[in-house]
């Protein structure tokens, strides 16, 4: 099995989406969930495919084709499942994120994210549409 490197933010996002979607994790549903998690950033469907392929090559997820459905014009979905290595990698990332959160909360206060969310027009000195 290929060695799993440390995860990038987008990879963490997709692994979280797959974890949450459980058995119904396929291209469109992962895109919807990842867009929700990445809000207000936009997520492109093409980037989802590229990253899913990369995660599969790393052995963090596996895929299988489901039965064809009429709403997809009789085409099958490629459903993704989190592998044990993927779960471990996501846990590691979550622990790191938790540590970062603890430090930022101790300095900026526990509600800093709420303040941040209230001022969506200006974040970190950048204008956000």
């Amino acid at each position, binding site marked *: 099995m*290929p060695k799993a490197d440390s995860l990038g933010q987008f990879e963490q996002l997709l692994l979280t989406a797959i974890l949450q979607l459980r058995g119904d994790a*396929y*291209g*469109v549903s992962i895109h919807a969930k990842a867009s929700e998690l990445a809000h207000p950033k936009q997520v*492109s*469907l*093409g*980037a989802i*495919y*590229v990253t899913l*392929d*990369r995660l599969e*090559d790393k052995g963090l997820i596996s895929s299988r*084709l489901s039965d064809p*459905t*009429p*709403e*997809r*014009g009789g*085409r*099958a*979905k*490629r459903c993704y499942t989190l592998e044990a290595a993927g779960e471990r990698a996501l846990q590691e990332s979550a622990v790191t994120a938790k540590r970062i959160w603890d430090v930022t909360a101790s300095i900026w206060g526990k509600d800093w994210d709420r303040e941040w969310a209230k001022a969506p027009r200006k974040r970190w000195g950048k204008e956000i549409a």
Partner: protein
Amino acid sequence: MPGPSRRLEVIVAMFIPPACREEVLGDLQEKYVSPMQYIGLAMCVVPCVILSRLRRTSDPLTRLTEALLIYGSFLAATWYSDRALLSKPEGMLWVALPTAANLIDLIFEDLWRGGSPWPARLVRLAALAVGIGFNIIGEFLTVVVVMGLHLLPGLRLHEASGPSIPVERKSPASAKSVLMASAAVAMAAVFLALAGRSPGPAAMGAIVVFVLLIVFRRPRKE
């Protein structure tokens, strides 16, 4: 349930590598709102899908080896047929161009594995047209194939049998078709030798067979 027209879907499907065509077309259909939105989404998604497949079907080291092998073949053929060209500044570039065309052909064949390899055919036809246009088909082509394409199938067979290469990255089992093609050209070479190294009618006939075999060979079923 609204969906894209059959014609639009066929056009988009042509540009999606067969290995992921089913799920990508299904996802695009699920996100369908209008024909223009469908085309816009497909234009964003398809290049990413192609690049991802390219990464999965290509091993950089193998591609480099193939490139060197093909380049060496063209270099040898140029040395054999027109040695003076190699001393000119543009000589090396002249050799690099058919090398690039061959490499693109191999890449497309790997990408479109399991379906109609129309992009690879397009490259072959373009290369053939250029070959005819510049009158470089004949002894030159025969030497190229005898020198290089006999080695290439061996390399590709070796890659395909490598146990350490993940299934997705294995080079295509295109060895069989290349073997057939190079066998045809080996015949062409024999004809050439019999004809006293000049591309007479028999040799030209064998070369035409080779070219037809290369351009119109049937896709592999996996």
